[in-house]
């Protein structure tokens, strides 16, 4: 199979993720969409790895997985903190950091 198909699927998943991040307001869903984007990138990396026939891309993918795990940990921590303080779980409501 040519690399094009892998990239096409990867691009599709990335677009779905990006669209979700832009459209949805629930932070949990946004995190899910972020994961989609990261995994789309992973797919592309692994695809390239296969194309070149070496393991560099796979190692990158592993690192991305670790970073994604860290990011989710921090993100979920924030969501839990919001919930505890009875704040609305809605990213559009949290805009105190405006100029």
């Amino acid at each position: 199979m040519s690399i094009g198909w892998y990239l096409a699927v990867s691009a599709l998943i990335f677009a779905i993720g990006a669209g979700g991040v832009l459209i949805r307001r629930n932070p949990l869903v946004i995190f899910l969409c972020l994961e989609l984007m990261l995994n789309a990138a992973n797919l592309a990396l692994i695809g390239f790895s296969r194309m070149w026939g070496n393991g560099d891309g796979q190692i990158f993918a592993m690192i991305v997985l670790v970073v994604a795990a860290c990011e989710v940990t921090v993100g979920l921590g924030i969501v839990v903190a919001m919930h505890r303080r009875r704040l609305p779980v809605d990213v559009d409501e949290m805009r105190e950091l405006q100029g």
Partner: protein
Amino acid sequence: MSATTAAWIVLAAPLAGALVTGALFRRLPGQLAGWIGTAAIAVSFVFALVTLAALQSHSPGDRELTSTAWTIAGTVKVDARLTILVDPLSVFMICVVAGVSTLIHLYSISYLRGDRGYVRFFSYLNFFVFSMLLLVLAGNFLLLIVGWAFVGAASYMLISFWYRRTTATSAGMKAFVINVVGDVGLVLGTFFIFRHTGTLDFLGTFRAAPHDFASGSGDVTAGCLLLLVGAFAKSAQIPLHTWLPDAMEGPTPVSALIHAATMVTAGVYLIARMHPLFQLAPAAEDVGAIIGCLTLLIAGTIGLAATDLKRVIAYSTMSQIGYMIMGVSVGAYTAGLFHLMTHAFFKALLFMAAGSVISAMGGNQSLDRMSGLRRAMPFTFACFVIGGLALSGVPPFSGYFSKDSILLFLAGRGGWYWILYVAGYLGALLTALYTFRMIFRAFFGEPCPEAVELEHGHLHHPAQPTNPANGEIEDTDVGFPGPDHAIAEREWPMRAAMGGLALLAIVGGIVAIPKTTSWLDNFLAPTFANSTISVHPSNGLLALGLILGAVISLGGIGLAYYIWVLRPSLAPEIAARVPLLTRLFENKWYFDEVIDALVVRPGAWFGRFAQNTVERVFVDGALISGTTGLVRAGSALVRGTQNGLLRVYAGLMLVGLAAVGLYFLLQS
């Protein structure tokens, strides 16, 4: 003790005195500050004598010693070092400066007793002397400039000492501003020299100058002319002289110090010190000689018309400094410095006597008010007359020999210097006239009420103290002359100081009597050994000069006696006969007005223009408001995007990344 160690102590003692009295301000009771200050200068004088003795033990060819405390800017190849130069010239100067200053300090102990700024006064006074000693001991241009500027600053503080008087503060500012003009001249002149020789060190410069400069070349002439600007401003030569009469607003001991020891002689010293450079620039020498000559004549004529006792003496200083500048400019270094020394003696004496007179008059300085003080204050009268005789150049007083040795040198040079010679004797006539006009008006005639009061044993004190310059009622806080007055007849320190100076004014000429003694010539010879100008006036010229000097001074005194004592109505008659000249002299040749119109008013106009137009419109309006407005508008534009909406940020990021990606895609 080596000469340089002693010279460092000469410098350190007045500085220590200034710091101690300054730091213990308010904590020094009674006249303790005065005694500390006097002791500091006395120590300085003693060590000046030690330096002199130590220097004499060297062989004549080895009398230029330097000592460096530390190097200031060695890394950038500028030899800016804290170096003092101990040679006959500087040792001569420190002896005169420290010696006369000691007596002036002694006098001030009593004279300033009633002043509430007593401690401050002695702190300033010590600093003034320190500055002058630094100036004359400096071993390079840098330290010379530092001492030069310190002298200006100290004179500002002392002229404005009675700071409640508006006249005193404006006089101080005037002195400072004019002195800064001189400072600029000195600094620029130094640059001209330094550019070629590459060294700031005096000895190095003088060694290098004959190789680096062609005689009369443009740069050395320009440098020397700029140095002359500095000398003219410090030494009150035309046209930078107008600060000197105004400086009479300071306390009388300050006037004595400025005129005798610490300030106006700096210009004479500068020219004498720089003589290897000036000899390469004959044009600058001639300018100095002509300006000195003009100053001595013009100041003499103003002195004839001035009615303020201290101002008459001030103009006489200008006139005498004119002789010195003329002397050192034409190459009569020893004669010029000889006159500097004798002038220091008799001028300090005259000022001290004038201070005593002013005290007796309750602070009034106007000659119109004074008369017949002779019987009331015999000691002051005697000192005044001794000072006056020395100033007029009556044999065998000190001024006779020193003035005539300058004029003799001029005669020896011949050529157009004969004009200066004749002008010098004309100036001598004027000197005798205005000096004895002052003496006859103050001490002779019917006693004025103050003199009568003093004869009955009571010192006059005005009920309401007023500023004698403009009649304003004094603001009797700290910055005004105290309620007490001190006259020499009643204060032994004043008497001691005046007595010492009177003695020196009489016998000071002994160091260089023509054809008899040549101590001063021999002593200064190593410094001026490289002088290319030497004259050997014939015995005939010498005799002519000595006789002419005696005749003119005695004739002048006789004429003054005739005009102001025998025929008191004659002076107004003469004045009415030549109204134009009288007006010219009374208005001081309109120098103040001309400088005001040419410099001060355009300067003030430009200042207002700069404030109203450049500052307000251009700087404030365009530059500052423009910049802030631009930043504010720009930030308002950008601020809209910072709306805190996470999804907008994410979207913008995405668009941006996509745009960057697209750009690189199209590039490839």
